[in-house]
C-alpha cells in the first residue's frame, strides 16, 4: 500500500475529505431518525384512539339501546376490537399501507404480511413503524365498530363477526389505501387528514345499507324505544371528545404545529357543533336535550376530522355549526320522514357529518379563510371538486360492497335474530347474560 507522504498529496487528500461533508446532511435525510417527542406523542395518541372505541363508543351506543340489549352492544364493540387487531396485524396493515406495485392505485402489497420486516427497529417517518401500525390499527378498529349502531338490537352475533371481518378486508383496507396508503385518491389530492372519508362516510353509508338490509326493529316506530341510560351515553360522548385529540392531532404523526392546530380546531368545531345541535333542537322542539348536545358534539368531531390538518380556528366554527345543524336535521327530521331504522343514527351523524366535513375541508383549507393554504396552483373550486370525487367514490364503493357482503351472509347464515329472541333481548338470547341484576 502506498501512503500519501508528499505535501501536495496531503492537501489533495484533505480537499477530498472536505467534499464529503455535505454528504453528511444527505445521510440524515436518507436514513430517517427516530424522534422521541414524536414517538411519545404517537404512542399516546394510539391509546387515545383505542379509548374512543373501548370504552367511548361502547358506552355512547350502549346507553342508547334498551336495557335488554346493552351487553350486546358492548360485546360487539369489544369483539370487533379484538378481531380487527389480529386481522390488521396479519394482513390489513400490509395491504393498506405498503406499495402494491402495479396495483398501487387500488391496493397495497403483501410484503409486510404477518408483520414481516416490521421489527423493533423499523422506522416510519420519525416514529417506530410498530407505532404507526398500531395507530392505524385503532382506526381500523373504530370504523367497523361505528356501524354497529345502525343494526343495533337485532343482528346475530355470528353474522356480525363475519360481516366485520369481511368488511374490514374488502372495504376498509382498500379505501384506507386509496386515501392514505399511496392510492388514487391521495394521489389525486383529496384532502382527508384523519378519516372523514375512510372512517366516517365509509361507516355511515355501510350503516345505512345494513339498516335497510336487516330491516326495522319489531315495533319501530310506533313502540317506544327510548335510550335506557343516557348517563352512559353522555359519558361515552365525553370519552369520544377527549380521545378524538388522538384521532385528529395524532394523524399528523408528529408532535408539531400542525398537530397543535389539529387539536385546537377539533375542540372548537366540536363545541360549535354541540351548540348548533342544541340550539336547533331548542328552536324546533322547545327544549334543549342532553342527547342532542352530546350528539351534536359527536357530529362536530366527525365533520372536523378530514379538515383537522388544514382548517383554521374560524373555519372550525363554521364547520362545527354546519355539522351540528345538518346532522340534527338528518337524525331528527330526515330519518323519521324516510322511515328507515338506522337505530343509533350512524348515517345521520357519520355519513352526513363526514360529507359536510369532507366538502368544507376543500373550502376552509384556503389561506384566505384561515386555513393552511391550498396546494400550489389549485383553486378552492378545484379542491372542492377533488373532495367531491373522494366523497362520491367512497360512498359508492362502500354501499355496493357492504350490500354484497350482507346479502351473501343473509343467504348463507342469516343476519337477523328470530322474533322471540328480539323480544327477549339479545343479552339473554345471544349471551345468556343480563346487564343489570338489580
Amino acid at each position, binding site marked *: 500500500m502506498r501512503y500519501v507522504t508528499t505535501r501536495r498529496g496531503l492537501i489533495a487528500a484533505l480537499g477530498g475529505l472536505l467534499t464529503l461533508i455535505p454528504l453528511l446532511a444527505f445521510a440524515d435525510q436518507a436514513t430517517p431518525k427516530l424522534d422521541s417527542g414524536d414517538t411519545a406523542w404517537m404512542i399516546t395518541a394510539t391509546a387515545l384512539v383505542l379509548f374512543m372505541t373501548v370504552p367511548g363508543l361502547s358506552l355512547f351506543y350502549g346507553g342508547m339501546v334498551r336495557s335488554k340489549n346493552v351487553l350486546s352492544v358492548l360485546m360487539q364493540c369489544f369483539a370487533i376490537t379484538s378481531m380487527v387487531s389480529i386481522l390488521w396485524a396479519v394482513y390489513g396493515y400490509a395491504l393498506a399501507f405498503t406499495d402494491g406495485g402495479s396495483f398501487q392505485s387500488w391496493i397495497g402489497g403483501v410484503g409486510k404480511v404477518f408483520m414481516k420486516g416490521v421489527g423493533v427497529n423499523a422506522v416510519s417517518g420519525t416514529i417506530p413503524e410498530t407505532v404507526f401500525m398500531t395507530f392505524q390499527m385503532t382506526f381500523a378498529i373504530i370504523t367497523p365498530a361505528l356501524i354497529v349502531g345502525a343494526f343495533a338490537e337485532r343482528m346475530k352475533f355470528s353474522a356480525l363477526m363475519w360481516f366485520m371481518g369481511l368488511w374490514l378486508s374488502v372495504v376498509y383496507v382498500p379505501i384506507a389505501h386509496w386515501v392514505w396508503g399511496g392510492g388514487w385518491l391521495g394521489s389525486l389530492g383529496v384532502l382527508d387528514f384523519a378519516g372523514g372519508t375512510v372512517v366516517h362516510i365509509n361507516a355511515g353509508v355501510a350503516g345505512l345499507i345494513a339498516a335497510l338490509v336487516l330491516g326495522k326493529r319489531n315495533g319501530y*316506530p310506533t313502540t*317506544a*324505544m*327510548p*335510550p335506557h341510560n343516557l348517563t352512559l351515553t353522555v359519558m361515552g360522548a365525553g370519552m369520544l371528545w377527549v380521545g378524538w385529540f388522538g384521532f385528529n392531532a395524532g394523524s399528523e404523526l408528529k408532535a408539531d404545529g400542525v398537530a397543535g392546530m389539529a387539536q385546537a380546531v377539533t375542540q372548537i368545531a366540536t363545541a360549535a357543533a354541540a351548540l348548533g345541535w342544541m340550539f336547533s333542537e331548542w328552536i324546533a*322542539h322547545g*327544549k334543549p*336535550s342532553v*342527547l*342532542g348536545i352530546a*350528539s351534536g358534539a359527536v357530529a362536530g368531531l366527525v365533520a372536523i376530522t378530514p379538515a383537522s390538518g388544514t382548517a383554521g380556528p374560524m373555519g372550525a366554527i363554521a364547520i362545527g355549526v354546519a355539522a351540528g345543524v345538518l346532522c340534527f336535521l338528518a*337524525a*331528527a*327530521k330526515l*330519518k*323519521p320522514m324516510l322511515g328507515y331504522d338506522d337505530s343509533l*343514527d350512524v348515517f345521520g351523524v357519520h355519513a352526513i357529518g363526514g360529507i359536510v366535513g369532507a366538502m368544507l375541508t376543500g373550502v376552509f383549507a384556503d389561506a384566505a379563510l384561515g386555513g393552511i393554504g391550498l396546494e400550489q396552483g389549485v383553486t378552492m373550486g378545484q379542491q372542492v371538486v377533488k373532495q367531491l370525487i373522494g366523497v362520491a367514490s367512497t360512498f359508492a364503493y362502500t354501499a355496493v360492497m357492504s350490500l354484497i357482503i350482507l346479502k351473501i351472509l343473509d343467504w348463507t347464515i342469516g343476519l337477523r335474530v328470530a322474533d322471540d329472541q328480539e323480544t327477549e333481548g339479545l343479552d339473554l338470547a345471544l349471551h345468556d347474560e343480563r346487564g343489570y341484576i338489580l
Partner: protein
Amino acid sequence: MKLITAVIKPFKLDDVREALADIGVSGITVIEVKGFGRQKGHTELYRGAEYVVDFLPKIKVEIAVDDALVEKVIEAISGASRTGKIGDGKIFVFDLQQVIRIRTGETGPDAL
C-alpha cells in the same frame, strides 16, 4: 279486620307514614306501582322521536287494621296525601279474613 290499600303520589309517602304513626298504626307495606286515572302523562323526546308516557309512577300502601281504626286511618291517609290536584289517588277498603303473626303464631286482631 280490614285491609286498607291506598294509591298515592310518591312524594307523599313520608307524610302518610307520619300521619299513620300519629294515630298508632305502625305496620305498613309499600309497593312501587305505575298507573293513571284522570291524570295525563308526559312526552319525552329523543333525537326527534317523541314518546307519550301514560303510566305515572305511584306508591301503593297497605295497612291491616282493626275495624275500630278504619275511619281514623282513612282520614289520616286522605289528609296527608291530598294536594287538591288531579292524580292524588284512591283508597280501597277490603274485608280481611285472617291475619297470622309468623314469629309467634298469634292470629286475628292479636296479630295486627
